[in-house]
């Protein structure tokens, strides 16, 4: 009862916080109305450009008319968003659920299901604003708190969010929904590290804290930029760049979330595994997965859903989305092969769990790279990730000594780091990569002869380090706060009985 009350009080607090921010935002409206339109969030300026048909023409003719989204782009992004929802529930929930003992099956499903739902609500209330509106290099602002100004019911118009092409927009609410699924699944990923022993209320309160102080700022640092339409002349390029997030300014490439999603969540998981402690009987009792069938179903659904995640991150239905799509396809297949080969060589047998883990490793590693590397680069990344993550759940796991129940760090941490760094290698046009813009006004790309793999890998490395340190520190403080207030861990008795009965009062299977 106590736990419930605390959780309730906490959500009230969250609402109140959102409410006051909303009030402030409304009060300062008059003041900010004078600010230039370009200062609006995510370059969603209603009067920025003309139709999306001709990028250069629309850039040259600002304030002509409201840009109209392409129906194909909108349709694709709705499908992509729904695919990412499928990645969390059911895919991730089943993938994780199959790996725990049957007495904890429902607890894992519930932790994923409720975390997902809670983060989506928080995202609508304040998360999106914190991540994707203009603020400083670390945090966004409050201009979109409570989805403010995104839909005008009187005229039926919506604010538009820019994509990666000049003059091409999608409704900002759709961009917000797409990004909501990212925030939510990232938080769900952490569940795997402390599965089978953490209090349900503690999980949720931790998620609120971590989401607010780690997910939102890292997403802002890596992904927030004013959008291509904001670069209206050569003279303002530097000033416009300065409005972007810190890691974006540093030149780190992260197409769909190697740092924001995977390294971020993996660090939170690893710190959690240390803070919550090992499961009772760890190393003595057999913690055999209760249904690798469900794990395989989950992994396979993840692969399908990931096409929404990665190809959807192009924000348009175009070549960039297709590049991300095929790379997500091939890298994952390569990683399944690599893991299976590695296991056969090391242990003599290739396992189903290994193949499923290989798929997830490949998906994770290609995430930052998918739209940023070439076709052969993707295959190499997948192959390397398969072997690297196999080491992550064997050698590295023993070195770290934490009971990371479902190997969140071994797969998502190692895979994320491999993917983030190799993105810097295979982005090079000399290695078949698409390169990245040299000139934000004209959209000109860095030429092969000017491309420095070393400096790009260094930019990627800095982004990885910032994410590791930031997420690690935020997690440490968040777990500590939860531990001091409601306690992280269930009682020994409850842990032995299983969280399904102890925390949720139900049983997954009846024989």
């Amino acid at each position: 009862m106590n736990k419930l009350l605390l959780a309730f009080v906490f959500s009230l607090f969250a609402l109140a916080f959102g409410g006051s921010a909303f009030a402030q935002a409304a009060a300062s409206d008059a003041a900010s109305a004078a600010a230039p339109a370009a200062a609006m969030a995510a370059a969603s300026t209603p009067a920025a450009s003309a139709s999306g048909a001709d990028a250069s023409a629309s850039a040259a003719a600002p304030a002509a008319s409201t840009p109209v989204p392409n129906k194909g782009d909108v349709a694709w992004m709705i499908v992509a968003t729904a695919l990412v929802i499928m990645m969390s529930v059911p895919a991730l929930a089943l993938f994780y659920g199959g790996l725990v003992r049957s007495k904890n099956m429902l607890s894992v499903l519930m932790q994923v299901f409720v975390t997902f739902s809670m983060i989506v609500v928080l995202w609508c209330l304040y998360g999106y604003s914190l991540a994707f509106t203009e603020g400083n290099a670390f945090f966004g602002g409050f201009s979109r708190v409570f989805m403010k100004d995104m839909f005008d019911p009187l005229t039926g118009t919506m604010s538009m969010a820019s994509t990666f092409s000049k003059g091409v927009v999608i409704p900002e609410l759709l961009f917000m929904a797409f990004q909501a699924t990212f925030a939510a699944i990232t938080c769900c990923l952490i569940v795997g590290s402390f599965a089978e022993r953490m209090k349900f209320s503690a999980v949720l309160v931790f998620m609120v804290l971590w989401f607010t102080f780690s997910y939102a700022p890292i997403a802002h640092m890596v992904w927030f930029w004013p959008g291509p339409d904001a670069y209206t002349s050569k003279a303002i390029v530097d000033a416009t760049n300065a409005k972007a997030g810190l890691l974006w300014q540093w030149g780190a490439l992260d197409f769909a979330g190697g740092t924001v999603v995977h390294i971020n969540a993996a660090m939170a998981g690893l710190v959690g595994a240390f803070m919550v402690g090992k499961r009772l009987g760890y190393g003595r009792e057999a913690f055999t997965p209760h249904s690798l069938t469900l794990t395989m179903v989950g992994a396979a659904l993840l692969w399908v859903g990931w096409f929404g995640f990665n190809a959807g991150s192009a924000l348009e239905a175009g070549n960039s989305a297709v590049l991300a799509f095929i790379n997500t396809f091939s890298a994952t297949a390569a990683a399944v092969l690599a893991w299976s080969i590695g296991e056969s060589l090391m242990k003599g047998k290739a396992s189903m769990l290994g193949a499923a883990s290989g798929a997830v490793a490949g998906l994770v590693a290609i995430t930052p790279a998918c739209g940023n590397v070439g076709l052969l680069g993707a295959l190499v990344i997948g192959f390397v990730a398969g072997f690297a993550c196999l080491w992550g759940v064997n050698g590295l796991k023993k070195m770290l000594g934490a009971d990371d129940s479902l190997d969140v760090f071994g797969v998502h941490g190692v895979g994320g780091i491999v993917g983030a760094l190799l993105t810097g290698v295979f982005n090079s046009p000399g290695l078949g990569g698409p390169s990245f813009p040299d000139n934000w006004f004209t959209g000109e790309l860095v030429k092969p002869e000017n491309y420095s793999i070393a400096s790009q890998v260094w930019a990627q490395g800095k982004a990885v380090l910032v994410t590791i340190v930031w997420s690690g520190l935020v997690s440490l403080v968040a777990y500590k706060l939860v531990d001091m207030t409601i306690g992280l861990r269930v009682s020994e008795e409850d842990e032995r009985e299983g969280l399904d009965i102890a925390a949720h009062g139900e049983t997954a299977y009846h024989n």
Partner: protein
Amino acid sequence: MKMVTAIVKPFKLDEVREALSAIGVQGVTVTEVKGFGRQKGHTELYRGAEYVVDFLPKVKVEAAVDDAIVDRVIEAIEAAARTGKIGDGKIFVSPLEQVVRIRTGETGKDAL
């Protein structure tokens, strides 16, 4: 009357049942069980974690029989369940004091 309890390999169950029917045993009770004997278990590997599985699945067949046929029952099970490899199982025979057929109330040999 005797209670014959046989622990056999699961895939031998049908042959054991047929052999028992052939010598006139009217009914048996079958339970899926786990246990260990001289047959070694196996190791299972889940990512980095290796577990030794000591308890192997077997089938327990219980038959209540008349003293007159108990030797033939034992021989039949032995012949049907044997593969010659370690892990074929065991047969336990114990005295049986009373048997009651619930439907009719018959007791002793008549209830077998």
